[in-house]
């Protein structure tokens, strides 16, 4: 089996598991039990982990708040900010292609009287910083624009947006979950006030994430109780998870250039083959400013889920974007209905049910890409043969040509 779905989640690096193991049954103390040996050892491990995570993004340790994941970090950054800064205005700017864990808090704020301006993007999914600047109002309290998009891979011009935010003294949050552990991040270079990191997107464990919060900003605690995490987040700390995330950050930092080189090579190989060999294929996202190892596209006349299923039957696991944003498993939404991201980049929603996202990881190989390249033509051929739309097209009625 080939795993090309690293934007949905990544396998935990065995070195990370190894780093975590001592904190289950060995150093199992509660960091709040500062009075005895187990608690002190746990507290020390927590401090060290915070230092690792902080230094991996150029932050101070006290600027790192551990959460249960990226979703909680985004909730805290957004709801927590406006609750703690009621005087800062009732207007928020966000990109139109944010993850649901950003969109949903914004929607709840809209129902509480906030106005949100959703800034669009170009056909490559790139938000123009000038558009963000233009959207600024006298009472803009907050800007939130993701660092990278999991579905189409585009990396935003965060620094340039930050310049506008700084100039107007507006709090700027970026959701860097999809960039975590792949794209090196320095919070000072980016110039953001807060930033969401995901552990399970970078070979760390699930159930942990972090919010960077620049010194001088205040947030209102969302999960209240025992006041852990300097009062920003209550609940006994997930110490093994936090230690694992820290190890994942250390590894990502140490191996950044190796990983990026590999991922770029695999990405270019697949991209070039697709561009040259698959008719009716349309790439999504930015051709240049994109997550290394990320290739996304759709194929005219072919429905996305059936393509995914056929690839899976050949042992290739991809996704239709962000698994994290589509919890369906028989519940209430259509996974492959046109996503808000594809709509925003102008993909004709009427004829495209989902782009295919191939998100490669540090342990993928060129052989695996070769295998996918060898498997794709017959799959596409089969699906074209099954497609009534393609039959029409052969008869001269191309539904995409209007």
């Amino acid at each position: 089996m080939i795993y090309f779905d690293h934007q949905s989640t990544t396998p935990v690096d065995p070195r990370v598991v190894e780093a975590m193991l001592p904190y289950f049954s060995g150093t199992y103390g509660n960091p709040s039990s500062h009075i005895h040996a187990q608690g002190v050892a746990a507290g020390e491990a927590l401090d060290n982990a915070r230092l690792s995570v902080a230094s991996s993004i150029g932050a101070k340790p006290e600027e790192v708040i551990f959460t249960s994941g990226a979703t909680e970090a985004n909730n805290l950054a957004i709801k927590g900010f406006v609750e703690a800064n009621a005087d800062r205005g009732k207007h928020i700017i966000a990109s139109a292609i944010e993850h649901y864990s950003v969109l949903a808090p914004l929607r709840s704020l809209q129902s509480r009287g906030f106005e949100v301006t959703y800034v669009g993007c170009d056909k490559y999914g790139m938000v123009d910083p000038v558009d963000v600047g233009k959207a600024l109002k006298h009472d803009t309290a907050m800007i939130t624009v993701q660092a990278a998009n999991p579905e189409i891979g585009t990396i935003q011009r965060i620094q340039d947006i930050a310049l506008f935010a700084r100039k107007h003294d507006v709090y700027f949050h970026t959701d860097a979950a999809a960039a975590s552990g792949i794209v090196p991040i320095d919070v000072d270079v980016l110039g953001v006030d807060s930033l969401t990191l995901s552990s399970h997107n970078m070979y760390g464990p699930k159930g942990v994430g972090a919010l960077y919060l620049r010194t001088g900003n205040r947030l209102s605690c969302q999960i209240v109780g025992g006041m852990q995490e300097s009062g920003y987040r209550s609940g006994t700390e997930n110490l093994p998870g936090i230690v694992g995330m820290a190890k994942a950050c250390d590894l990502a930092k140490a191996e950044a250039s190796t990983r990026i080189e590999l991922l770029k090579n695999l990405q270019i190989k697949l991209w070039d083959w697709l561009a040259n060999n698959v008719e009716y294929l349309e790439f999504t996202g930015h051709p240049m400013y994109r997550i290394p190892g990320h290739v996304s596209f759709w194929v005219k006349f072919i429905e996305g889920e059936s393509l995914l299923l056929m690839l899976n039957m050949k042992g290739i696991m991809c996704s239709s974007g962000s698994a994290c944003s589509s919890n369906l498993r028989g519940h209430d939404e259509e996974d492959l209905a046109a996503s808000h991201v594809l709509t925003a980049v102008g993909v004709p929603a009427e004829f495209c049910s989902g782009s295919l996202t191939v998100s490669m990881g540090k342990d993928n190989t060129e052989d695996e890409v070769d295998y996918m390249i060898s498997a794709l033509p017959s799959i596409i051929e089969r699906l074209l043969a099954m497609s009534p739309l393609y039959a029409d097209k052969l008869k001269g009625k191309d539904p995409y040509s209007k």
Partner: protein
Amino acid sequence: MLRTNLNLGAERQMSRLHPYSDKVMDHFTNPRNMGEIADADAVADVGNPACGDMMRLYIKVEDGKIVDVKFKTFGCGAAIAASSMLTEIVKGKTIAEAEKITNRQVIDALGGLPPVKHHCSVMAEEALANAIKDYRLKHQGSGS
């Protein structure tokens, strides 16, 4: 000393389906009756790519009996499997019998579909109904 007791409630089984049953995957992988009938007696298009699914059904009728049936479908795994299963159920039935086929039969024959995918079986039922309507229109009085 303890106030609560050990009497646990009966273990009630969960019923969440995994996305697709083996039957669905079989019909998706090896769809039956996929293709076109050049001299079909009736054709129906239902669904809409905008909704993610579109199905085209061809039927060939002899002496009030559906002797051949083919489909082409743009859609998800469930849509393709439902299309394929429908054609299997329909084949050999009289028009009168075929009219009674419901989406429930398609779902059951597939060993179930996830709730969010039930509309795919509805699409198959509608395709059949529309094909029969088309057939009636074209062969007024000739069939059942």
